[in-house]
């Protein structure tokens, strides 16, 4: 995906000559020269609208002042931004904006980091000539669980509206009324029900949109900030974590044009309350009969080390741990305990990531997220990215709507991507592999498989072997000379694969001749009483493994179990020794995202009690087992990693440091340079991508209004979760042959998938997000629903083996004979249904 050659032009701004790419926006070119033109509506992540009129500048030869946010530079342009004429206009705009502004800065969350406040200091009048009563509205409206709207403070810059419209594609927040009565509002019968709503708070240039979790919590100057990375999904959005005292109070997106642009999802933004949840473990626990007793760290480590010395030991790790943890876990298992049984695939049990090895020499992606932007076609097979990889969904949407890529979706059920897909291929659960194999031969899909192509895959279907569809996809990709994004689900999953927490792979993707047991095999062995000890790090197999009963039996029957966790999870409650763990905002560490980009987390808050990073626990265990690694710091771990992991040999971890602006918003006010943290992609045999290869390139800023086509998409997507029937043409490709296998048998095939908000240990401890989880629902094909005599909103009973649960019917576009159930929702434990064979009987309740 080559960079386009761009013509350079010479522009003079405030007397300084500069070379700039032709067509770039004046406001950006000026900013790069250190000339900050004040602005409210302009945002580099969205199209220009030029409504606030704050960025007016004088361009020689133009009859009027022009908005620099919508004026492209041209050769020979001579611009003045601070002479009396433009400066006067800027002052006038501020006077206009302030006449109806309540000036309640002392009680406004934004006070101290407010572009309106800052620009008023810089360009505004000292006093007001407005003597009339101000415009008033009802002060604070809760427009969702998360967002509070104060229309009096609003300067009508449209950023929130444009974000919802252009970036997120869910138009829940809109302009209402006209003239001086224009307001930002949600529709009266719908809350601001977006997975990305928090971004509107961050980009609001005043305190009109505030976070329900942060209202009146702190003044910005009392906050301490640290750059970090979201530890939920594998997109790995950089974040700015902020604390007051030692309490984490706010998480915001840290812009990175390679990963998240300017955005994070609401789960990443509001899902941090787990760090100081009441039931957070702060001290080691040692089993004492039916109960636990508190222990010192040393005591607990000694107790565990004693049991791990001999016999058959298994290690299961979770998806939210750091690269360092992963390295330490495999080191303890392979070097100290000398067991080959270790795995980090819990929910995506059976996912065969290592199949990529044969094609590229690396486990995981060969494409970067940015490759999506240059792609002409994208194939997606897997779960709904809006639910599981939310910011990747935004990037896919951008690639299609702005970049013009053609999207081909292969899925047994309707995904949010379908709204802008060129081809939607509906297959039976398990029929993905066949459908994919047929892509290159079936018209009209094959004609749209044009290079550059990015093939995307993520394990969609907990409890099912999904390696075949990955294989199929990779074959297509190789045939079409494509790159691929192979997306392990969680923030730490790729790191686990890189560091060799895998029964068949050593660190650096080195295959092992005699593979150990994977998660399922370990649990089966434990349940059969054949495992002497089990170490579970940052994982809760009882809640997450697609066979709940098996995981429960394993924990009960295993000789000894050590669990390292944040919370007393169901798994931890059955352990013999529990060590308290650390949360992402508390540690120095690294995470590797789905494109194998290594990013650094900096510590901000302190861990409770004697909680320690899992890698320290591993090192302590090793020392107790007479294998002293002599690790005391993050740097020590990395010294070992660069020595022992071939793919990470030349990596300079110090170069990964991200910077945060003193205030997360301040870069907009011209007092700080725009942050541009760019971590390198880990070098692998698959090749190294240039560092920050899009840095300095302009964001696409096509002019308002949105294209007609895009608005059509919007219209289709509103209003909500369960979209209407697909508009994109649907083709049946290759659904036959093998597909028959999973479809035969009694009852419906269970197709399970995670939702953004669920009963997960971290997210469910954020009360605002927990309240948004959708609960127990089941998606049914309309024909199946008719046969069962049920309709939208009816209650049905799902029966699988001895498990029976009720759920609300949602009629959806899903393959006939299959039901979709959300994974891990209140009242609906999909892993119990899956554990009983993957089929359910559905009956009207």
């Amino acid at each position, binding site marked *: 995906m080559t960079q386009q050659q761009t013509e350079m032009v010479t522009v003079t701004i405030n007397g300084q000559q500069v070379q700039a790419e032709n067509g770039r926006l004046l406001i950006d070119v000026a900013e790069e020269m250190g000339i900050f033109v004040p602005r409210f509506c302009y945002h580099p992540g969205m199209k220009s609208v030029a409504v606030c009129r704050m960025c007016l500048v004088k361009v020689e030869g133009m009859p009027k002042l022009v908005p620099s946010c919508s004026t492209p530079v041209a050769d020979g342009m001579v611009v003045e931004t601070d002479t009396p004429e433009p400066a006067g206009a800027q002052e*006038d705009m501020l006077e*206009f904006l302030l006449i109806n502004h309540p000036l309640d800065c002392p009680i406004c969350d934004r006070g101290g980091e407010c572009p309106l406040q800052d620009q008023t200091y810089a360009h505004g009048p000292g006093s007001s000539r407005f003597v009339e009563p101000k415009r008033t509205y009802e002060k604070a409206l809760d427009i969702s669980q998360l967002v509070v709207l104060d229309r009096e403070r609003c300067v*009508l810059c449209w950023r929130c509206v444009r974000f919802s419209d252009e970036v997120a594609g869910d138009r829940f927040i809109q302009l209402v009324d006209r*003239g001086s009565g224009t307001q930002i509002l949600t529709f009266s019968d719908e809350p601001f029900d977006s997975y990305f709503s928090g971004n509107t708070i961050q980009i609001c240039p005043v305190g009109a949109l505030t976070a329900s979790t942060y209202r009146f919590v702190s003044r910005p100057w009392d906050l301490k900030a640290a750059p970090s990375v979201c530890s939920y999904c594998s997109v790995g959005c950089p974040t700015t974590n902020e604390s007051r005292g030692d309490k984490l109070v706010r998480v915001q997106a840290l812009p990175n044009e390679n990963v998240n642009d300017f955005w994070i999802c609401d789960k990443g933004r509001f899902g941090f309350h787990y760090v100081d949840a009441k039931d957070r473990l702060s001290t080691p626990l040692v089993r004492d009969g039916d109960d636990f007793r508190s222990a010192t760290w040393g005591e607990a480590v000694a107790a565990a080390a004693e049991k791990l010395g001999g016999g058959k030991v298994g290690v299961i790790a979770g998806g939210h741990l750091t690269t360092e943890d992963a390295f330490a876990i495999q080191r303890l298992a392979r070097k100290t305990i000398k067991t080959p049984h270790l795995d980090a695939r819990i929910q995506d049990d059976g996912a065969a990531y290592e199949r990529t090895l044969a094609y590229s020499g690396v486990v995981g992606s060969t494409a970067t997220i940015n490759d999506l932007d240059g792609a002409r076609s994208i194939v997606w097979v897997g779960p709904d990215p809006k639910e599981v990889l939310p910011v990747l969904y935004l990037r896919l949407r951008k690639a299609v709507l702005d970049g013009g890529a053609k999207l081909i979706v292969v899925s047994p059920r309707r995904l949010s991507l379908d709204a802008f897909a060129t081809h939607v291929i509906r297959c039976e659960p398990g029929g993905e592999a066949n459908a994919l194999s047929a892509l290159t031969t079936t018209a009209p899909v094959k004609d749209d498989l044009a290079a550059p192509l990015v093939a995307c895959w993520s394990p969609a279907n907990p409890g099912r072997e999904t390696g075949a569809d990955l294989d199929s996809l990779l074959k297509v990709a190789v045939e079409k000379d494509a790159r691929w994004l192979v997306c392990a689900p969680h923030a730490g999953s790729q790191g686990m694969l890189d560091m060799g927490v895998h029964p068949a792979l050593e660190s650096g993707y080195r295959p092992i001749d005699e593979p150990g047991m994977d998660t399922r095999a370990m649990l089966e062995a434990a349940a059969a009483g054949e495992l002497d000890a089990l170490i579970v790090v940052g994982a809760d197999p009882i809640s997450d493994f697609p066979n709940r009963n098996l995981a429960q039996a394993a924990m009960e029957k295993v000789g000894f179990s050590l669990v390292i966790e944040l919370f007393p999870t169901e798994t931890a409650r059955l352990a013999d020794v529990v060590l308290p763990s650390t949360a992402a905002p508390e540690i120095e560490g690294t995470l590797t995202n789905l494109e194998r980009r290594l990013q650094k987390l900096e510590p901000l808050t302190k861990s409770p009690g004697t909680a320690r990073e899992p890698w320290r626990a591993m090192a302590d265990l090793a020392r107790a087992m007479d294998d002293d690694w002599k690790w005391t710091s993050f740097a020590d771990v990395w010294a070992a990693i660069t020595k022992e992991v071939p793919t990470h040999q030349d990596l300079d971890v110090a170069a990964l440091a991200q910077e945060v602006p003193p205030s997360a918003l301040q870069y907009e006010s011209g007092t700080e340079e725009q942050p541009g943290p760019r971590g390198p992609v880990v070098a692998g045999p698959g090749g190294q991508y240039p560092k920050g290869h899009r840095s300095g390139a302009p964001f696409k800023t096509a002019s308002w209004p949105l294209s007609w086509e895009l608005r059509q998409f919007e219209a289709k997507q509103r209003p909500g979760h369960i979209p209407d029937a697909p508009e994109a043409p649907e083709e049946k490709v290759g659904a036959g042959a093998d597909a028959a296998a999973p479809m035969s048998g009694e009852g419906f095939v269970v197709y399970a998938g995670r939702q953004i908000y669920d009963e997960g240990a971290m997210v469910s401890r954020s009360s605002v997000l927990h309240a948004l989880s959708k609960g127990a629902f089941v998606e049914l094909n309309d024909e199946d629903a008719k046969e069962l005599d049920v309709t939208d909103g009816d209650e049905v009973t799902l029966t699988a083996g001895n498990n029976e649960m009720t759920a609300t019917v949602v009629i959806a576009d899903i393959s006939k004979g299959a039901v979709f159930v959300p994974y891990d929702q209140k009242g609906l434990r999909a892993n119990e249904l899956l554990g009983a064979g993957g089929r359910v009987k559905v009956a009207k309740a």
Partner: protein
Amino acid sequence: MIDETYMVLKRAREFPKDSWTLKRALDDGAYDNLKKAVTEISQADLIELVKNAGLRGKGGAGFPTGMKWSFVPKDVFPKYVVINHDEGEPGTFKDREIAERDPHQMIEGIAIAAYAVGANKAFIYCRGEFALGSRRMDRAIKEAYEKGFLGKGIFGSKFDLDIVLHRGAGAYICGEESALLDSLEGFRGQPRLKPPFPAIKGLYGQPTVVNNTETVSTLPHIVANGVDWFKGFGTEKSPGTKVFSVSGHVERPGNYEVAYGTTLDQLLDLAGGMKDGKTLKAIIPGGASAPLLTHADYALDFDSLKEAGTMLGSGAVVYMDETTCMVRNALVTTEFFAHESCGKCTPCREGTSWAVKVLRRVESGEGRQEDMDLLLDIANGMDGRSFCPLGDAASWALRSNVKLFREEFEAHVREGRCTFDGEHKELVGARSGIDTGISQQGDEGLGGEDRLS
């Protein structure tokens, strides 16, 4: 006293009883020129013809019509022609009469324009309030389809045309072409960022020509009589005729069609002079947006009025006599703009409503000495800084009132009351009851529904 020069009002004036019927129109030669255009003239020649005739748009800006057409890319399809029949400029009522009295002439003109630019679909964006006009256009469109003047293969040529009549929902800004297009597409009527201009990316993102009703109604006459005939009327740079909507304190308000270059005095004579023999005090020469003039010896063409610091605009001429309170005039005009501001950009949204608040104080005797300068500052803050010409227009009207009649404003402040005896208060105060949303208290309910009641 001069005579009117009828062109677009010819049929309407000659046959006042049935000028809108198909029979009368056909008897009078309607659609002959469409036939001539589609069967005898090539598209390029037609564009050249209109360019050479020097026809200028009659909606307000006076942009040369032929040149506008020539900006439309030849090889992008589909293209659209959109007729701006949203006549909303206060004082203007010419398009209304053209559509009511001669819809067939309008349809013929639309078809000629569509043929010239290669569009097969045309939309008439009709002001919502025009009930009679829209009924007559609707009927005329049906009749034209029945006769084969619209639809497939018009007059045996390869030219197809469909016309869709769409009634607006009552926003002044939808007379601005890009806001009109947004409204027509079903969105909030607000102006679009330009470029791209509609000729390149207009309706549904396709090349679009937006022409005024009067402009297209002139086309059949140019096709019929040619360039030289057309240039025989008016001035060198403003050839042809123009329908002026005359109102205010005159004896016979109404539409008068005269050649460009006619003076404001001559137009006033046609309208019977000032009502009750009163003295002329001020003239709005081109709709509420145009800065005021204080005497009538200006020629009515684009360049003369531009030189005089005002504009021809849409041709709405309002004559005001000595009983008019200019503070009230400024208030009423500014209230209109505040009410019609779409709210998109800061200066227009905040400036117009602020100016209304100040003007209300001055008019009710609560003004301060500094208010006149404040009003001028507000006007300067809007002028040239707004997103679209609405804010500019509001500032011009406001500024010219304050500048030309500052003494009257000061008298209001000095005496603490309106210095006029109220003779015309009913007339000009009719709109002042309209709330601009700025006094909205408490905001009951989410939408502030009572705002306009």
